[in-house]
Structure formats: structure tokens, C-alpha cells
């Protein structure tokens, strides 16, 4: 049974259709990468799936217990320390105070934050550390489903790699399923079990590809070769880089 099922989702902003007929499912413990050019409606789809935006049409079935989300920007509250930000979902779920501290430290450690960073305010953290705090905040309630909306786009290549490994490890140990949105094909191949390609105009899922192996076991050379193959020989990925959202009606 799928944890998340979207059935013929459609949405429009001020009469302009952004998404149409999107059907997809994510199975238990499966990481699905959703790729598509910028402006194709990926964020909107994630927000609809997570319940932030009410779709104009279509049905959503959520069979998971608890979800979390990592946004493109860290979205940390500037007035709270890293610990306060990471513990925010615990505060919302009214977890008892005395256990919060330990759970926060644990989630921070899994996201690669040191205990001494926990007392710092977001303005005192580097960009990478802020995104780590955002990941820790997503992990802290032990969700069984996490939405990632292009979380590493703003990071440099080396940092991006480290964060991707972190997500792969966390997914393997915490056993969450994820919808991982990205427009970086390398990232999609590295991190996911299955890659979905969103139509450039948001009209349905154009197709799917299953990279061989499973996340964390693929070697770098194979990942690069596969990306090269997708970009040069696979018509499904032909429009992945060449669409400018301003050209859309």
C-alpha cells in the first residue's frame, strides 16, 4: 500500500493552470525523486501533497502517521536558538519538556550539528549549518514521511554531497519515505529509488525511471554515466534544463 497517493491533481493560480492531471504514489520506505524544470510546479505539488495548498481538483490519500518538510530555504525562526528551532515540532506536539532536550540533541547529531551549535541563533550559523538545523527539525519527531523541496540548491557542490549522504543515511536508519524534489539530476539519481519527471508545463507526470541499485550503494562513476545517458540519449529528460519559467503563458 502506498503511503502517499495523488490522484489527478490539478491546480491554478489566479486562473492560470499550473498543474493538471498529476497522479503518483510513494510506497513505504521509498524515496521518490521528482524532477522537472524550474517553474514547472514542483513546489506547488509538494505543498498540495503536504496540505499547505488546497488543490483545485483531484484526490490526495495520506496513509502515513506524521510528515515533515525541508524547504528550499531553511525557514528557521530568527528569534529562537538552533535547539529551539529543532524542537519546534516537539513543542507543537506537546512532547514533555524533559525528554525534548535529549531528542533534540539526537536529531541534531544525526543532521551533523554539534552540541555547541545548539545554543546559537540562526544568524550565527553558516548557510550549511542552517540547512542542517532544518533537516534536524524534520527528523526530530521521527516522521514516516518527509517532503524535501529542493533543499540543497543554495549549497556548494561539496556541501551538497555531504548533505545528500546525510539524507541517504537518515532514510536508511529512520526508515522514512520521501518525496524529494530537485532539478539536479545527479542528486535525483544518487538519492532516490525512483525518479519521476514532471511535464515541463505541469501537465501530468511525463514518465519515470528506475536507476539500478539502491541509494547509498551506487558508485560515483555509474551515477555520472547514468546522468550523461539520461541527458544525451533519453528523450524524457530533453527539456529538463531548457525551460525558462518566464516564457510560460
Amino acid at each position, binding site marked *: 500500500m502506498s503511503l502517499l497517493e495523488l490522484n489527478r491533481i490539478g491546480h491554478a493560480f489566479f486562473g492560470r493552470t499550473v498543474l493538471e492531471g498529476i497522479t503518483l504514489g510513494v510506497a513505504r520506505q521509498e524515496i521518490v525523486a521528482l524532477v522537472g524544470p524550474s517553474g514547472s510546479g514542483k513546489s506547488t505539488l509538494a*505543498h498540495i501533497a*503536504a*496540505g*499547505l495548498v488546497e488543490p483545485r481538483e483531484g484526490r490526495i490519500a495520506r496513509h502515513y502517521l506524521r*510528515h*515533515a*518538510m525541508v*524547504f528550499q*530555504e531553511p*525557514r528557521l*525562526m*530568527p*528569534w*529562537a536558538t538552533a535547539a529551539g528551532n529543532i524542537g*519546534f*515540532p516537539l*513543542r*507543537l*506536539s506537546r512532547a514533555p519538556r524533559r525528554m525534548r532536550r535529549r531528542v533534540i540533541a539526537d536529531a541534531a547529531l544525526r543532521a551533523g550539528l554539534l552540541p555547541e551549535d545548539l545554543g*546559537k*541563533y540562526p*544568524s*550565527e550559523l553558516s548557510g550549511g549549518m542552517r540547512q542542517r538545523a532544518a533537516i534536524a*527539525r524534520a527528523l526530530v*519527531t521521527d516522521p514516516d514521511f518527509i*517532503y524535501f523541496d529542493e533543499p540543497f540548491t543554495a549549497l556548494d557542490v561539496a556541501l551538497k554531497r555531504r548533505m545528500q549522504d546525510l539524507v541517504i543515511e537518515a532514510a536508511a536508519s529512520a526508515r522514512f519515505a520521501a518525496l524529494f524534489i530537485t532539478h539536479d539530476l545527479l542528486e535525483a539519481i544518487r538519492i532516490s529509488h525512483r525518479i519521476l519527471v514532471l511535464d515541463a508545463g505541469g501537465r501530468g507526470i511525463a514518465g519515470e525511471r528506475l536507476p539500478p541499485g539502491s541509494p547509498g550503494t551506487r558508485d560515483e562513476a555509474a551515477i555520472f554515466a547514468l546522468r550523461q545517458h539520461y541527458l544525451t540519449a533519453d528523450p524524457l529528460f530533453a527539456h529538463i534544463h531548457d525551460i525558462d519559467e518566464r516564457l510560460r503563458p
Partner: protein
Amino acid sequence: MSLLSACLDRLARLGRFLWSAWAGLAGLALIGALWQAGHEAYGDFILTAPLDTLAAAARLMHEGRAQELLALTTARALAGFGLCALIGTLFGVAAGYSPATLRLSRPILTLLLGVPPIAWIVLAMIWFGPSDLTVAVTILISATPVVFVGAVEGVVTRDRGLDDMAQVFGAGPLRRFLFVSARQISAQLFPALILALGSAFKVAIMAELLANAGGIGGALARARAMLDIAEALAWVSLAVAALIAVEYILIRPVRAELERWREAAAPWGVKR
């Protein structure tokens, strides 16, 4: 646990704050010097020397009646301020969340801000006579728009991304407001509240003077009638001192507590 470190942190901040008083003192000394220069140029009758003024203020305080008048004016100003803070914040937040209300309130605001406070004093005098109510209503009408605008700004300039974040993690509208929006609104609201407090004091004294309603304004009117420049200046100094005392006792500590993170964000050397 971390209680000790929290106390130490507050002590350290208090120390830094007290140390920063030197800058304020330097500014005051500069004003004092200019004042003294003015005194020496124009003589006692136009501008009493700063030290003589201080002596006059001290005398007024010792005589006892001054404390009563100060307390009366402060109480009136605070009552008006409290009312305008409450009403301005309530309506401002409501208008910020409801674009229709905001559009409706803009022309009303322009109108209210366009009418000079003195006109309100005259109207309030006619309606309520020389009473506390006259002072309170004048303060309410002249200071509420500032608070209202501050609250609206706070709501509309808030980071909506944080709202989405809180919603994803399961916060309903009420907890989104309490945990995420209220903090951002307060950041815009506090400067407006400080402004409103200052104008509450000024308007209170003005209304007292014109409505002959006692308090510092009444005392000022008497000093003017007797052409006693030393006493007039002494009353002005006392009023300013009362305003500063209220601001630093009432508003600044709350603000400092809420805006601790801003201090952390400031680079070394810029900390005030």
C-alpha cells in the same frame, strides 16, 4: 540547570546596558553645554542656567506638591497610552489579516492623522469638560494611528514562509499566530509603542495646559502666567525625566528580552 547561566547572561546584558549609559550621559552633557551657552548669551530672563533649573526642579520635588502633579500626569498619560496600545494593536492586527478592513481603514487613518491634536483637545474639552476623560480621549485619538500602523506593518511584512513551516509541522491558525506571527509583529510594534508613549506624555501635558485640567500642564500654565522661566523649564525637565523613566522601566526591558537574538546577530563592536 541552565538557570544560573540564564541569570548570568541577563546580568551581563544589564552591565552592558549600564555601560552604554556613558554615551547617553555624553549626549546630555552636550545639550547642557549648549544650554549654558544660550544662557550666557541671552541672560537669566530668557533662558535660566541648567544648574539653576535643576535646583528649581529639586526644590519643586522637595516641596511635595510636584510629586502629586507628576503622578497625576503620568497616570493620565499611561492610561491613555494603555488604551491606545490595546486598541491600536487589536485593530491593527485584525486589519493586517483582513485586506478589506485595511483598505477601509486607510482613508480613516489619513483623516485622523490629518487633524491636528490641538483640534481634538478643543473638541474633547467641549464634550467632556476639564477632566481625565478629555486627556485620555485626546491621547487615544492622536496616538492610536501610530500603533495601528505598526501592528499592520508587523502583520503584512511577516515572513509567510514561517507560517507554512509551522503549518507543515501541525500548528493550527491560533498556534501559528502565537508561536510564529506574534513575535514578528512585536518587532514592528515596539518602535511604534515607544513613539506612542512619548506622544502620550506630550499630548497629556498639552491637553492639561489647554483644558486647565491640573497636572504638569496646569503647573506650566501657572508658570507662564507668572513669567517664571526657571519654574517652567523645571517642569519641562521633570516631565521629560518622567517619560524617560517610564520608557526604561516599562518598555525597554520587555523589548530587550524579546529581541535577544538581534543582539546575537550584531557583529562585535556594534553591540550597543
